[in-house]
């Protein structure tokens, strides 16, 4: 299993993963942010930049086992969360009642295949997906155009600044995990390039969030469940029915890519932490860990802790400053 990632592959796959993670996290998983979600995404990018700068410096200075471990564990945990979320989303759109566990199996097969093919294959598929995403999204926007209600973007802060700040902390954590893993794995040292790629990804997320907010209004607290939010996104009763197919494709492919990227990143980081471990056992270990964590009930939300943990990990000077680590 190839644990290398070229810079162009890193830009494409990390960018696509950030778009999916932020959109899912702010619009489906944390709907209390609602109207303020676009602001949370923007603030999240700003909060993540100092930590990413520290990670870029760490990439220049050689192995940092503590940072690698922190990113590895975070990637694996997030991948497990995304596995569960993707399976749940599919159960909502499926015609029959299918247990979420059964829906996880084909996803794990896809992840296993990605681990086998490696980071550059993931990057290539992300580039293909980006090319398909744009025309699909244009079709959706064109046919939804008469149904957009810009007035529903207000009140602009949604449920308040507290919710927006919570959302921004979570967004920063997700950006740091995905961006940080990509930086370390491809050996990117140019912080400006990292900033540029992530800024474009966050701008795209902001646009998607604004479009979604204009399709369904903010509802009372009882309407904030995941299923309700997924319905409001995919089958909201206002968009024409024939748009369900492109919207489900965009959503599911985005989520699948995110899952594959985070799982592959965890596997590649594991090989960096334990250089003696070859690709196959690293892949099997990662896949098993992700599956197990997805099946276990999660009672603790780690989203708010990710950014502080990453910050500490990036600052702690554990590990000797050996030769520069190439991607």
């Amino acid at each position, binding site marked *: 299993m190839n644990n290398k990632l070229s810079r162009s592959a890193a830009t494409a796959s990390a960018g696509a993963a950030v778009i999916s993670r932020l959109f899912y996290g702010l619009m489906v998983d944390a709907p209390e942010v*609602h109207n303020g979600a676009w602001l949370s995404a923007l603030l999240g990018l700003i909060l993540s930049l100092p930590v990413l700068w520290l990670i870029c410096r760490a990439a220049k200075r050689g192995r940092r086992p503590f940072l690698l471990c922190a990113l590895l564990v975070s990637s694996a945990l997030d991948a497990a969360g995304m596995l569960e979320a993707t399976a749940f989303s599919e159960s909502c759109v499926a*015609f029959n009642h299918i247990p979420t566990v059964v829906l996880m199996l084909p996803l794990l097969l896809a992840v296993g295949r990605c681990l086998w093919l490696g980071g550059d294959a993931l990057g290539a598929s992300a580039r293909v997906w980006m090319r398909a995403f744009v025309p699909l999204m244009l079709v959706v926007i064109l046919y939804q155009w008469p149904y957009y209600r810009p007035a529903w973007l207000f009140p602009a802060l949604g449920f*308040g600044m507290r919710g927006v700040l919570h959302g921004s902390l979570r967004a920063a954590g997700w950006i740091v995990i995905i961006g940080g893993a990509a930086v370390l794995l491809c050996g990117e040292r140019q912080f400006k390039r990292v900033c540029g790629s992530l800024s474009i990804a966050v701008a795209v997320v902001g646009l998607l969030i604004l479009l979604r907010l204009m399709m369904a209004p903010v509802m009372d607290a*009882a*309407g904030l469940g995941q*299923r309700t939010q997924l319905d409001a996104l995919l089958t909201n009763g206002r968009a*024409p029915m024939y748009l369900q197919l492109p919207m489900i494709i965009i959503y599911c492919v985005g989520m699948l890519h995110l899952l594959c990227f985070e799982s592959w990143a965890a596997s590649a980081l594991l090989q960096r932490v334990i250089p003696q471990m070859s690709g196959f056992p690293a892949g099997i270990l990662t896949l098993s860990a992700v599956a197990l964590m997805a099946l276990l009930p999660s009672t603790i939300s780690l989203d708010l802790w990710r950014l502080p943990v990453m910050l500490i990990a990036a600052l702690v000077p554990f590990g000797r400053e050996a030769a520069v680590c190439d991607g």
Partner: protein
Amino acid sequence: MRRLALLLSLTALLLTGCGGTTGEVENQAYALVLGIDRADTGGIELTMRIPRIGHPGDSNAGGEASGSPYLVLSAAGEDYAQALEHLQWAAARELNLSHVKLIVASEELASDAAFPELISRVAETRHLYTTAGFVVCEGRARTFIKGQEIILGTRLSSELAAMFRHYAAHGYIPRATFADLYYATRSCYSDPVGIWGFMDAGEKPAAATITDDEDRLNADTLTASARQYLGGALFREGRMVRRLTAGETLGLDLLTGRVDTFSFDVGGETCMLSTITNPRRQVKLDGDRVTVEADLRLTAEDSSDRALLDRAEGELARTLEALVRRCQTLGVEPFGFAERAAMHFPTYQRWISYDWRAHFSTAEIIINVDIRSSGG
């Protein structure tokens, strides 16, 4: 090549949705119309109209007369969930709600205190896509649905879609989907409106309901269908509070920018008017004082008589102001002004605590109508 073949074979194994016969079209009961009513026992009664896939003269069919291509089934339960479960049994097939075109609620149930909660239960039903039109009917929903007929088309689903599109374009009915009702009930903006449906008992011509003054009958209007749709149903916090006449519905559609072409009577002379742009709606907040302003720009299709058009401007503005004042008295705001007012507030909590309905009921209303002749 071998790898590709292996990959395709493995992928095919994952197509679990295609297994068995339950997914076949003939083995599913596609509901086109869903009716919700208060059951005689006090619970909920659901009624569905389902197309028969096969020969209309199928001797095994129950429900309606065996010649009809549609089946009407009803079931009651203590609550919505139980009624739906009973209907699953009555349908004797997998009930498929993904093609519901119309949701009909009886006036009695729509006015009930439990209706807001019921709206959420219905909207959250698995695979019930809420793009369906929403009608509040006079009398029983079951009776209303049983009497639905296909007049010009070949299928009920396309018949309903074409009819509602035509009526809405001319302002006879509001553009009301069940999704609009659900979102408006659960959100913090303007109140929703439903379509009013009634049964033609044959005692008075349908033209009587087209005019606001029922004593003014200009001519008999012969209609082919026993089920009519004209006017609207006004809702407040998820409960129906009042019916809207056809004239009031036209006024509502004009103020919300949802009508293309309509006729307007000015002292015995009829003008055919079209909207040029969506109405410009503004809400100004000055402490507790609220001013609501709407500017309408219309064009007269068939008249260049400036005096007539000036009279029409004044008459239309007065009619619309009277409609808004009537809604102010009821404490209902279905015109979309709430969305404009919400722009003045940074958070949802501040907007809610402002109590828009209370401020709207004392707001100053200014309606400006500008009608231009199509000749320039």
